[in-house]
């Protein structure tokens, strides 16, 4: 009996790409409820810039608006100033700064805590959307090519990452509402909410903040997208993307600790 020919892994579809069956808006909404179906459509449809550009713009706008609104509240500006003052005081105590330098630095912080901070927050927030989507698209593409041995079109991965970023946009919105609701600029939909008076330099708070429900949600959606594009089981993509996220987060936390030690006294 002849054995059936082996099914080649991750072979790109030879069928001609079809126009998408749903609109961009529908895909943006459906990614919350039925991401698998959305990514199946993305895989077979022709390349669409709208699939990634529109979600990135939405993500960027939501983050920018949230930053501006938070920085417009005197209570949060006050808390950030108090935090910065503590940093300068620590440097003065450690002998890395004189009292005069600390006072001058504080004056500069206060000078820039007004409109300049809001503009910076808006630009930073908007830019972060682009950076995050393309960074994760690169990671996903790299994992797909090198580990999952799938031949992936990079822009398709960008479309998946772009659509998944809508969950990050929702997280920005929820984070902003939590900040306003709890009067805490460090509030986020994570286990960090359990701490009454969190200190950003507290390592426990840093660890609890990492356990963020929205972060896991977006990781799962990205994993679904990668699994559908690569034609591999979901479990494999979840493991690899979770691993990549854990390494990235650890590196960021380590960098932050080093920077604190070097500059924060």
């Amino acid at each position, binding site marked *: 009996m002849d054995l059936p020919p082996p099914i080649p892994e991750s072979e790109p579809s030879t069928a001609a790409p079809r126009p998408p069956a749903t609109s961009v808006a529908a895909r943006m*909404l*459906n990614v*919350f*409820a*039925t991401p698998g*179906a959305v990514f199946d459509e993305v895989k077979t449809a022709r390349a669409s810039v709208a699939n990634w550009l529109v979600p990135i713009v939405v993500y960027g706008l939501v983050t920018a608006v949230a930053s501006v609104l938070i920085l417009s*509240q*005197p*209570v949060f*500006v*006050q*808390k950030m100033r*108090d935090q910065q*003052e*503590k*940093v*300068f*005081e*620590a440097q*003065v*105590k450690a002998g890395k700064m004189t009292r005069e330098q600390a006072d001058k630095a*504080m004056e500069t912080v206060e000078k820039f805590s007004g409109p300049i901070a809001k503009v910076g927050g808006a630009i930073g927030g908007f830019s972060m959307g682009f950076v995050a989507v393309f960074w994760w698209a690169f990671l996903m593409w790299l994992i797909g090519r090198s580990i999952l041995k799938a031949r992936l079109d990079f822009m398709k991965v960008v479309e998946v990452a772009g659509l998944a970023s809508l969950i990050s946009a*929702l997280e920005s*919105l*929820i984070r*902003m*509402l*939590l900040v*306003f*609701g*709890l*009067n805490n600029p460090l509030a986020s939909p994570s286990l960090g909410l359990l701490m009454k008076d969190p*200190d950003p*330099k507290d390592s426990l708070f840093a660890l609890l903040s990492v356990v963020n429900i929205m972060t896991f949600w977006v990781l799962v959606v990205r994993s679904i997208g990668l699994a559908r594009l690569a034609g591999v089981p979901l479990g494999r993509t979840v493991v690899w993307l979770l691993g990549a996220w854990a390494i990235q987060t650890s590196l960021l936390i380590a960098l932050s600790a080093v920077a604190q030690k070097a500059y924060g*006294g």
Partner: protein
Amino acid sequence: MANSTKRKKILIFSGIGVVLVILTLVAVLKKREPVITVQTELVARHSLTNIVIANGKIQPVVQVTISPEVSGEIIELPVKEGQQVNKGDLLVKINPDIYTAAVNQANAGYESSLAAKAQSAANLIKAAADFKRNKDLFEGRLISESDFIGFKAAYEVAKAQLDSADDQANVAKAAVDSAKEQLSRTTIVSPLGGTISKLNSQAGERVLGTVQNAGTIIMIISDLNLMEARVDVGEMDVVGIKPGQTARLEVDAFKDRKFAGVVTDVASSSKDSNLTGAGSSGGGGQSQEATKFQVRIRLNDKEAFRPGMSVSADIETEYRTNVLTVPLASVTTRPPKPHKNADSPKTGGTNTAAARLGTNAVVSSSVATNREALEDKKSKDSSKMADVVFAREGDHVNAVPVKIGICDDNYWEITDGVTNGQEIVSGGYRAISRDLADGKKIRKGPPASETAKKD
């Protein structure tokens, strides 16, 4: 399948919607007010001493400059710097030769004048005898009138010559006395008991002496048993300093000791005011230095002070006993609260404007004049900042205007505005000087420096 997908979508979107609505409601309804971390203390009673700090030098109270009245070479100098001398001790001997010669010369002149005087007296006796004899002859008409007048004139001349000789003798006597006086001045003795604090000349040096001017300063004798601090006090502080006030002095040479003193003198004019023409004609009031007045403080304690030692004085100018005080950092300034009964001329404020002017001046019927005066006073009021402290009322603060009195290193005296035991904000510096205002929300906490230390 489609139905289950639809139901799944409805569930997920409903869940997201409910979460967003709840969070939005909480965010909108929540009051957001900056909470400022402060430290507080209670108003308490303390005794305060107002202190004026001034720097200067230690100098002896009595200090005499020894300079000669006659010029010459120093032939004897039996003292040295730092030596103790008593009143009347020999200090300096100047070469007396020239002055001895002058005495001898004067004596000779005097002797000569005495001889001339004796000669004149003898001449007078002869002239008197001749006059008497010839007078008798003239009365007996035995000699002519012209001859008699001749003898009379000779008698008068002899008398005048004797007077002149007598005067010449007196002049010669005075010259002798003067020469002797000059000779005596070649020996200088100490006018007081003390220490030779400075010796400028050596034996063999020529010194210049005059009566009217100081001449060469040979040495300075000081009474080191009685020392005073001469300190410079600024014009803003000198008005509060009076003789009799106590002071604590710190001498650089005796770092770990404080000495007691009493103010004995306050200068009536500043140190620069005696410069006639030097400052006024040249710079015309462009002096860069602050105006200082010299204050003298007698040192009560005996110690090995030396003239010229540096000293810092804390002069106690005012005292308050058991008065209401607040920490120095608690007092700051804020614009005064606007008057609630501020009026405008339109609303019939003429009388009110006059009342605010605080005078019994006749209110002008001209509204424009009142408006001008009112606006002028308003602008003066707004430019003045009021002294305030921030009193804690629960989790808010109230800006309380206060009247301050004197202060020391730690506390301000408050004469009006607060009560004993009232809790007021005493830190942090930025909160008091800038952030706090009437009604702001606060919480008590450690200072930022302590928090940073803990971190």
